[in-house]
């Protein structure tokens, strides 16, 4: 590829609005045997009809010139069929998809295309799925030239999403007949739920206020930064930590900022329980999922805490771990594909069966029917409740912006 010419279509933005630098997926391997088929376009069929009428009339009335014209028009069809996409089989393509992909958030699809044989003219490249279609047109693709095509895609719904094989199409030279070929394998990605915005401080306050007064009073106050005693261990620097806590020697050795952790330090452990009702509208359900996903996403930005997510459904899921990038994706993928309507008893049983970390509990529910109290009783700890059907009452949360608008 040393002398390969490269061309890029940089007409669309490709940067995702995320702080995570997740490597994009590996390019799809080019297929060794390219599927293709030829067909007449709609205009081509009309053309065929017109030419056939001309030939029929001219044969019937022995109008030689019209017959010659009709034969010429007919001859253009097989000629076009023969020439259309003559070298499509010698194209190789790969598709790069970024990760993560959030519903409602634009992301860039990049396709690399190269012709192994001679030039290909009038090439249309299509990347499509159930909810998207991106197309590019290349008037000419030279032999050996690598072309990078980038398009912006916004997927509206969370869940699994299939990208069909990259399709190339050419009707050159007349557009009366065309040949289509599929160059790559199909791809499947998990589209994560839409994210809104959570104000961490307000959420903490909600969690604290939801606890009974006695519990609040018993809760140790936040450590005085000045009192640097009871050193316990080292941990990574978080936003809000005092620079005085930084352990410079360890930071220099590890290449990242490390701070001292003290014995009596309070941690932001959290248990998020998502409870979806069967009778709720899809919009409310999606709002609840987005709310839960946004809380998880926000909580995972601060590393080192324990976070658990319990999701209802026929087989309730409970995922628990230490906050960080990996846990964030586990939780969001679970929220993207798992949430379903299920019985609360199963969810409570599941929660009761697992040892849960010492953490505040946030119930995200679609209905206000006292399930929070039942959950609090079952877990033996206070539960803060956020109702997706009344997001105005959830002061720490702003719903996702509508990118489509």
């Amino acid at each position, binding site marked *: 590829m040393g002398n390969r010419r490269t061309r890029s279509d940089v*007409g669309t933005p490709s940067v995702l609005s995320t702080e995570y630098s997740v490597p994009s997926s590996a390019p799809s391997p080019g297929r060794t045997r390219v599927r293709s088929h030829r067909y007449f376009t709609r*205009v081509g069929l009309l053309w065929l009809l*017109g030419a056939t009428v*001309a*030939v029929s009339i*001219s*044969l*019937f*009335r*022995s*109008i*030689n*010139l*019209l*017959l*010659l*014209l009709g*034969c*010429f*028009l*007919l*001859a*253009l069809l*097989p*000629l076009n069929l023969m020439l259309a996409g003559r070298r499509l089989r010698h194209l190789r393509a790969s598709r790069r998809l970024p990760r993560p992909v959030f519903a409602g958030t634009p992301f860039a699809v990049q396709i690399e295309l190269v012709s192994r044989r001679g030039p290909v*003219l*009038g090439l*249309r490249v299509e990347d499509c799925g159930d909810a998207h279609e991106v*197309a*590019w*047109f290349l*008037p*000419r693709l030279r032999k050996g030239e690598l072309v990078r095509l980038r398009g912006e895609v916004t997927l509206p719904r969370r869940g699994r999403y299939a990208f069909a094989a990259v399709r190339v199409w050419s*009707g*050159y*030279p*007349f*557009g*009366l007949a065309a040949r289509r070929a599929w160059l790559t394998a199909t791809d499947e990605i998990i589209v994560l739920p839409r994210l809104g915005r959570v104000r961490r401080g307000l959420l903490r306050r909600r969690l604290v206020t939801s606890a009974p007064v006695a519990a609040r009073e018993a809760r140790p106050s936040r450590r005085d930064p000045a009192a640097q005693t009871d050193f316990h261990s080292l941990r990574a620097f978080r936003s809000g930590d005092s620079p005085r806590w930084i352990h410079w020697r360890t930071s220099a050795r590890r290449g990242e900022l490390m701070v001292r952790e003290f014995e009596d330090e309070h941690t932001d452990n959290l248990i998020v329980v998502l409870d979806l009702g069967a009778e709720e509208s899809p919009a409310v359900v999606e709002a609840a999922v987005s709310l839960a996903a946004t809380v998880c996403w926000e909580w995972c930005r601060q590393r080192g805490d324990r976070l658990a997510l319990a999701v209802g459904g026929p087989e309730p899921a409970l995922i628990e771990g230490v906050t960080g990038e990996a846990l964030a994706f586990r939780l969001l993928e679970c929220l993207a594909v798992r949430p379903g309507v299920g019985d609360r008893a199963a969810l409570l049983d599941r929660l009761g069966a697992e040892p849960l970390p010492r953490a505040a509990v946030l119930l995200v529910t679609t209905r206000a029917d006292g399930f929070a109290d039942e959950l609090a009783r079952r877990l033996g700890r206070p539960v803060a409740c956020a109702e997706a059907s009344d997001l105005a009452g959830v002061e720490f949360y702003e719903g996702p912006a509508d990118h489509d608008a």
Partner: protein
Amino acid sequence: MTLNLAARVTGYLTLALAVACLACADATFVPALPWLLPIILVVLVVGFVAEGRGWVLPAWVANVLGIGIVVAVTGGVVVYVLGKADVPGDDRPLALLLLPYIGPFLLVLALVKLFRPKTASDLWALQGLGLLMAGLGCVLADGGPFGALLLAYLVCGAWHLALAYLRREELRTTATRPARGAVPWRALGVLHGPRSVLAAGLLAVPVFLLLPRAGDEPWTPLILAGPHGGKGAGRGNVGLTAGIDLNRTETLDPADEVAVQVEAFHDRTQTQPKTDLRPTQRWRGLTLDSYENGRWGPGRTLLANSVLIDEVMGQPQLLPPPPPQTRPLPDLGRGQYYLNLTVLPRKAGGLVLAEPAVVRGRVLPVAPALGEARVRPLFQEMMGILTPVPQPHDRTEVRYRQVVPQAADPNLSEPGPVHVRYAALISRPPAGPLGPWTRALVARLARPAGSDLRPADIEPVAMVGGWTWPRDPERVARALTTYLSSSGDYTYSFEQERSDSALDPTFDFLVNVRHGPCTRFASALALMLRSLGLPARVVLGFRGCEHLGGGHYQVLSSQAHAWVEVLVGRPGPEGTTLWHWLTLDPTPSAEEVPRPSFSLVRWWEKHGDASAALWRDYIVEYNPNTQGNVVLGALSDSFAGTEESLPNSPAAGLLVGAAVALGAVALGAGCLVWFKRRRPARARHVSRVPFYARLLDVLARRHGLRPLPAQTAREFAAEAGRILREQPATAGLAELPARLAELFYRVAYGGRPLTDDEAHAVQRELDALAAAR
């Protein structure tokens, strides 16, 4: 130039060419159309500029305007057509009447769509209208200029199709932002159109030639012209035809195609070439004795008054036939001479015979040529004169012999029997004002003193059978001939025109037009004679021939001619009357149509004629006969390998040759592609170092040794040396490859070329290796 601009330019150019095609084709029927063509082209230019600047009418305004214009034009056309439908004798169906007027309708539709906002479907619709115009032109025209315009339209159309496809796809994929891509070809892809047309033509023309045809007669736009034609209804070729249609209005084109080839001999054994054929020798073709609605034809009288002679060229009815090659020719007396005629009826319009073609006794003066074995009735006898049977569509060359007597008066036939019914038929006066007009003319011609025609000569005399003749019919006939040919009132020209379509075309010629080709003069004289009660008929044939030397002559299409034969009586022995056919030529001979003498112009004319003939024979007038005789006949004969049965037409040979060449090229290309796909390309071991290249060549050719893939020069040399050592003749040279390989490394990679001595030594050793077996 951007793709958008290129697509628009070619689109409008294609549309303009379609309009030009239509104007060229429809000019015969809507004479105003060619005059409107510049205006239409200007409108197209305005439309192009307006589209480029975004000046378009709102859709509803354009629609209302368009509907209004279309309704107005439709109304005008309907009124005009209905007016034309009242022409007497015009019995064409209304659909045929309307056909030429669809052209202006299409034009208006296209112009209306120009100023609308255009989507992709509008652009297709616009070009579809252009295609309809071209298609309509194919129905309305058959001339060469239209063919050239059609070709230009197709070339431009193919170019535009490709550009429009690219532009359309560009718009489809970049709908959200303006697309301003460039044309992805050099020189805007100008060659794309011709290449596409050539490729499509290679597919289309064989299909066109091989498609089975239903009707015998190809379509002619003159069907649409009606019985009286239109002004300037195209161009015709000078040549013999199956009849005369005086309703046609056209300009004759004096094509110089060879119609008849003649070899003349004094003796029966064909050893003494005759080189003194008269320059005005007449070659008799068809005899036209029926006149109706401005058309002369062989008519219904032939079978009633003549005997179709099968045994002339075919099998005798009773006697055992002699072989056709040895059929004897009669002895026609002193001064007779022999002709070998080679005629292509398609070009000559039928068979011809040298005048006088007399029949004496049972032995006919015509026989098949030596070696010719065709058996067909080709001639018929009419009252002692042998005439060819009309067969203008015969595409096969016919060769035959004729013996011609020495005639005392070449314009007077030998006396023969007269069939009264036939004489009555061909002396029936035409209806209309021609009779009184002729009688007044004859009276006027007989009036001046010193005239050859005396008043007594024109006095009517009652004849047997109830009709009347002038007292001296021969003198009257000669006077009328002289009047037409020499009075100066009439002139010869290639223009066949009409002045008053309500009149009979012959009378219109005599009274109004007063100029035209020989057919007009012959028709006029024959009808004038008939109006006086004289039996007269028109003969089509050729006058003159060109001597090529050695008794070889050729008769050209441009020498086609028409003259008149009138039946005259001469006193015979014992008070009887002998009836002769008197040949009269009323065509003015004073005017010679000037022919360009410049050689380049003649060359151009000659090749233009050849192209026109090709266009006419294989496109416009291509019919089942041509298909059967030329295409299928040529192919079958080629496969049968019978050289003598191959059609002698050079076009047939050309066609077969082209088909074979095309097939061979296709086969070769297919094999090449197959071979390349099946096997990887063999590495060619050709060195840049000459002496090493020669070593490889010698080893390969003489000893069958070739380097293996990935084998180094040194390895190959060692292997070659081993093999050379095993053979006694080359054992002494076994070290040569290794030594040359070392020299090769030195020269190729060490940068040290051979000295002269080394080069000579290497050369000698290589020569020795090449000579060793």
